[in-house]
């Protein structure tokens, strides 16, 4: 029987705008439709009724539910796969193609799967391709060709996906009559309300109801708007998490492809309505078999005549109304099968090949066979309780009503509408309104408590309101026959091609739990997320096992309520980056950037080896702004420093600088740095760049929890100062040209001292005589707003002194030449303080310091040592992390290279490494295993410093 859908004459009920035509293409054919058409209604109106092929057997599929959940209508739109054709609105120029077919929808070679369908039962893949394991790559390549879905174009540009936070008093999920009424009542009670509707229009089933229904929906929409309800259509509450943290996906925002809203709602009202269940019988996936809701939507909203001669299986009012709608649309009613009388449909047959395949006959329970191109089923409902499940609720089956109902929800989640009961329009609206009022009342209590407890909030108005109890009159439950499966087997999960026969087979194999059978057969795991399939799955399993539906129970619906695109989840990502005040200079000189944490730093300007040589020979400057800096004030700062550092701090003079190692409570090195005493009760601590935040937290933790009696104020000032290291033999001369009011002579300003003064006209600079590079050097900390000014002044005044900037790489080479270890590189998460070799700084005669007991214990035993290492071959630079072995023939690891570089100063490779103590003696010969597998020899050096071990340069 061939069938061509036709567009019905215009009616006031439709959502399409016939004055605004749209042109699009479907599998290469140019078609016309109207604004407001879904892709599915547009294709149907042009006479096609096959949209794609099923996942496994490649059976031709047509409209089943004609809404978001329709499992048969996934298409490719331009470069976007898996678009829901019954939901996505058609647009001018859209290129729509069928997916999961090859070479075409009409002639799909993969439909051959259907011929071997009886071998492709549940678990086929698990059982068939597990062994032999070595063949899996071959299996995988072949199976990949049968993977369902559309095609992803890897060249598609990433669209703009937005995010937003919201804090509404009440979120209403679902804008049918009850949801609308709830939103209106809550808003009238003073609540801020966000109303979220899955479909493009609010109104739910009123949209395909009577004129009075649509008028009611329009009136409520106007009321909601006038009350300031924020209405989000084509949007879905995708998940409910702790304390009503809600994910809401908005698909129709004007500046973004999609927007993910993270809402913290004081109350959530779930008004998701009911989803019509398909009926399970042989041939139930033949194109032309539809739910009553599908035909009603197609006729009323889109003006589509869905068939010419229909059989209607009805067990409820929706089926009865479908009969009336079909008659109004001019469809011949061949038979009405009343499921309330015990009659049912046994099976259906199709005829026609390729895209002409269509329902041709229906066999009823009494054996009567009726010719028809349309079979409409109205056999019952599924309450989409997903959001309630996510709140902890477990739905309860009511056999009299033949559906699940919500159980017990937390106080801040309420349900209303069809999912909690049946009733007239007025009863549903009344229940919704009562729910909205209740939600607003509870939200007001939550708001009062929040406001009263929040320092910044406005003062609360009066005493806390009474917490409203739930005094709503419950909706009734209409009796409904239990119609799940006929006497034949048919599709249960259309998305996954799982039939009732598969479920019986799985049950026979021993899969007795619905959660197990779900995973074994993949029933309910497709893009419909179980909305159409779960209850039928449970019913079939119950039948197979001879149990009741209540005994089988349901699977647990978890987030998301509906699938979310990866674009929306990944979306618009904030990735903060930090730069110093000198960044514009680095960029202007073409410095190679390196990302260090969040910081963008200049790795080098040209040749880092040349930068080293110039600094050792003349003078270099480098930007070390990320170095952590903490301003410490108060009389108890020395106590704090003594507690945090392993060495002594009570006698540090004003103008003095001291180096310290900081340990965690387990004795592991946490950080290191120098601290200066700037005034009587004023200190400036430096930390490693990566440790700045952590050390600040560490200090605050000690001050706030262990020593609140200590008078210390800590202020992070890392980027308040631009830090510039001036290093090299000419550094003092250069400093003399830019510094005012400070005697820079070695006698007046020796190594490990600090001074404050004016640099290049900038007051309040801090100058340190320290030397990470091992050179005579000064670290200048300049108020950051003037950092670039001082940097440029240094460069200008140092021209004749051979000044050149150097980057992070040159600094690393020089510190390695000097043998300075880096916390986190030369140490690790197990390196206790003794490993650093600085045992002279571990003052065990102090009363206490963090980590002291563990360090004392470590000193009594063996611990790895950081040592300087030089490969025998001066041109061999072992990669960092190379293993050090017990001997040339051994594979036993006794240490590793932690830092390595080629030193232009020494013209050889140099390293630091961690070694077992027995190998740490100076002169010990080592075997280093390179990454390429080669073994080379190296030697342990006497000092950490490869260069100037006596420190004459930095003290000079």
């Amino acid at each position, binding site marked *: 029987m061939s069938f061509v859908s036709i567009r019905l004459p215009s009616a006031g009920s439709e959502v399409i705008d016939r004055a605004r035509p749209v042109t699009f293409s479907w599998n290469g054919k140019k078609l016309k439709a109207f604004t407001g058409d879904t892709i599915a209604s547009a294709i149907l109106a042009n006479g096609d009724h096959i949209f794609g092929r099923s996942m496994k057997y490649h059976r031709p599929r047509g409209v089943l539910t004609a809404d978001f959940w329709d499992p048969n209508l996934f298409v490719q739109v331009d470069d976007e796969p898996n678009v829901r054709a019954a939901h996505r609105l058609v647009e001018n120029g859209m290129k729509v193609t069928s997916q999961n077919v090859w070479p075409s929808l009409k002639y799909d070679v993969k439909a051959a799967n259907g011929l071997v369908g009886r071998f492709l039962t549940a678990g086929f893949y698990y059982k068939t391709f597990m062994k032999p394991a070595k063949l899996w790559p071959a299996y995988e390549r072949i199976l990949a060709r049968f993977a369902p879905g559309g095609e992803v174009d890897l060249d598609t540009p990433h669209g703009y996906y937005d995010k937003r936070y919201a804090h509404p008093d009440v979120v209403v999920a679902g804008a049918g009559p009850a949801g609308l009424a709830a939103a209106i009542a809550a808003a009238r009670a003073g609540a801020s309300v966000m109303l979220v509707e899955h479909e493009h229009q609010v109104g739910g089933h009123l949209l395909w109801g009577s004129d009075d229904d649509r008028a009611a929906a329009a009136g409520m929409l106007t009321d909601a708007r006038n009350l300031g309800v924020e209405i989000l259509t084509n949007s879905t509450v995708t998940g409910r998490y702790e304390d009503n943290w809600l994910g809401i996906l908005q698909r129709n925002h004007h500046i973004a492809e999609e927007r993910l809203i993270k809402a913290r709602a004081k109350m959530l009202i779930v008004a998701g309505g009911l989803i019509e269940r398909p009926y399970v019988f042989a041939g139930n996936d033949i194109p032309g078999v539809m739910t009553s809701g599908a035909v009603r939507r197609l006729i009323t909203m889109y003006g589509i005549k869905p068939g010419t001669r229909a059989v209607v299986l009805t067990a409820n009012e929706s089926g009865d109304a479908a009969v009336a709608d079909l008659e109004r649309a001019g469809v011949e009613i061949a038979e009405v099968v009343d499921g309330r009388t015990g009659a049912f449909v046994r099976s259906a047959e199709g005829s026609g090949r390729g895209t002409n395949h269509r329902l041709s006959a229906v066999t009823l329970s009494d054996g009567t066979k009726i010719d028809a191109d349309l079979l409409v089923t109205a056999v019952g409902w599924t309450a989409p309780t997903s959001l309630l499940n996510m709140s902890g609720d477990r739905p309860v089956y009511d056999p009299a009503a033949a559906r699940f109902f919500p159980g017990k929800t937390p106080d801040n989640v309420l349900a209303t509408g069809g999912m909690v009961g049946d009733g007239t329009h007025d009863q549903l609206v009344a229940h919704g309104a009562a729910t909205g009022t209740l939600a607003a009342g509870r939200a007001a209590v939550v708001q009062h408590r929040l406001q009263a407890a*929040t320092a*910044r909030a406005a003062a609360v108005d009066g005493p806390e309101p009474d917490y409203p109890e739930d005094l709503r009159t419950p909706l009734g439950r209409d009796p409904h026959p239990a119609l799940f499966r006929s006497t034949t087997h048919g599709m249960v999960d259309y998305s996954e091609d799982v039939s009732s026969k598969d479920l019986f087979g799985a049950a026979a194999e021993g899969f007795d739990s619905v959660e197990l059978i779900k995973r074994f057969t993949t029933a309910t795991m497709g893009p419909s997320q179980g909305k159409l399939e779960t209850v039928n799955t449970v019913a079939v399993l119950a039948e197979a096992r001879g149990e009741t539906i209540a005994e089988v129970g349901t699977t647990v619906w978890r987030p998301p309520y509906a699938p979310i695109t990866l674009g929306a989840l990944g979306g618009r990502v904030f990735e903060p980056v930090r730069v110093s005040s000198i960044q514009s200079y680095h960029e202007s000189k073409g410095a190679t950037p390196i990302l260090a944490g969040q910081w963008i730093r200049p790795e080098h300007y040209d040749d880092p080896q040349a930068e080293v040589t110039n600094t050792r020979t003349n003078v270099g400057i480098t930007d070390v702004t990320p170095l952590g800096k903490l301003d410490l004030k108060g009389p108890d700062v020395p106590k704090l420093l003594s507690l945090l550092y392993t060495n002594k701090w009570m006698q540090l003079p004003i103008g003095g600088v001291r180096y310290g190692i900081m340990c965690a409570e387990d004795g592991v090195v946490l950080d290191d740095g120098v601290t200066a005493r700037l005034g009587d009760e004023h200190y400036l601590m430096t930390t490693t760049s990566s440790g700045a935040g952590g050390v600040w937290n560490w200090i605050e933790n000690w001050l706030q929890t262990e020593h609140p009696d200590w008078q210390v104020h800590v202020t992070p000032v*890392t980027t308040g100062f631009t830090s510039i290291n001036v290093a090299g033999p000419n550094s003092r001369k250069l400093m003399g040209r830019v510094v005012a009011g400070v005697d820079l002579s070695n006698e007046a300003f020796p190594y490990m001292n600090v001074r404050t003064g004016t640099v290049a*006209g900038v007051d309040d600079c801090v100058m340190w005589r320290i030397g990470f590079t091992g050179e005579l050097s000064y670290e200048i900390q300049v108020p950051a*707003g003037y950092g670039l000014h001082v940097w440029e002044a240094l460069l200008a005044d140092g021209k004749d002194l051979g000044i050149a900037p150097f980057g992070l790489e040159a600094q690393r080479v020089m510190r390695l030449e000097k043998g300075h270890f880096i916390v986190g590189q030369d140490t690790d998460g197990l390196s206790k303080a003794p490993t650093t070799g600085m045992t002279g700084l571990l003052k065990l005669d102090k009363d206490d310091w963090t980590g002291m007991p563990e360090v004392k214990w470590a000193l009594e035993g063996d611990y790895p040592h950081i040592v300087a290492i030089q490969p025998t071959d001066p041109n061999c630079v072992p990669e960092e992390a190379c293993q050090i072995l017990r001997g040339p023939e051994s594979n036993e690891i006794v240490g590793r290279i932690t830092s390595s570089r080629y030193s232009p100063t020494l013209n050889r490779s140099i390293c630091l490494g961690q070694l077992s103590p027995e190998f740490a003696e100076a002169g010990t010969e080592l075997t280093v295993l390179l990454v390429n597998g080669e073994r080379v020899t190296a030697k342990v050096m006497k000092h950490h410093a490869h260069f100037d071990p006596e420190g004459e340069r930095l003290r000079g």
Partner: protein
Amino acid sequence: MADAPVFQSPITNPTPAKGSLTLTDESELTKVSVRGAHIAVSFGTCEQRGDVLVVGSRPDEWTLLGPADAVAAVVSGLDLSGFASTTDITHSRLMIRLTGDDAARAMEKACGIDLSDAMTPNGAAVGASVAKVTCDVVRDDVVSDGREAVRSYRFLADRSFGQYFWDALRDCTAEF
């Protein structure tokens, strides 16, 4: 000898906001952190005192915002008896102001704080993550005679985030 130093903002490219909102770079204004002083401005609120906006940024900690180059004037008159301290954080923190009727809606795109009048009224101060940058947010609406107050927020964040933070806020203004 170099030219006289001129304050350089961390926002090197202050491209104007899009739409009806305005972004203003106020990084040059004086900012002083005060600890342990006797100031009758509660935590979580702010109060204008002459040229100085006193912000109760944390318990027992205030941030004073005043005209540029006026640290001494800003801290003058403070009761610093007992254990109290002041730290000039002008150079440590950037300050950006977002103003316009849709300022709260723009902020919703980057900040999880409840910005309703009840929870964050004019005069409120709150520590927040905005575009993944930890900052202090001060609601300081622009009030002019005879006109309705215009929503305005000041953001104080680590200086090093300057241009990133400006660009992130500007992006939030695009739809308004």
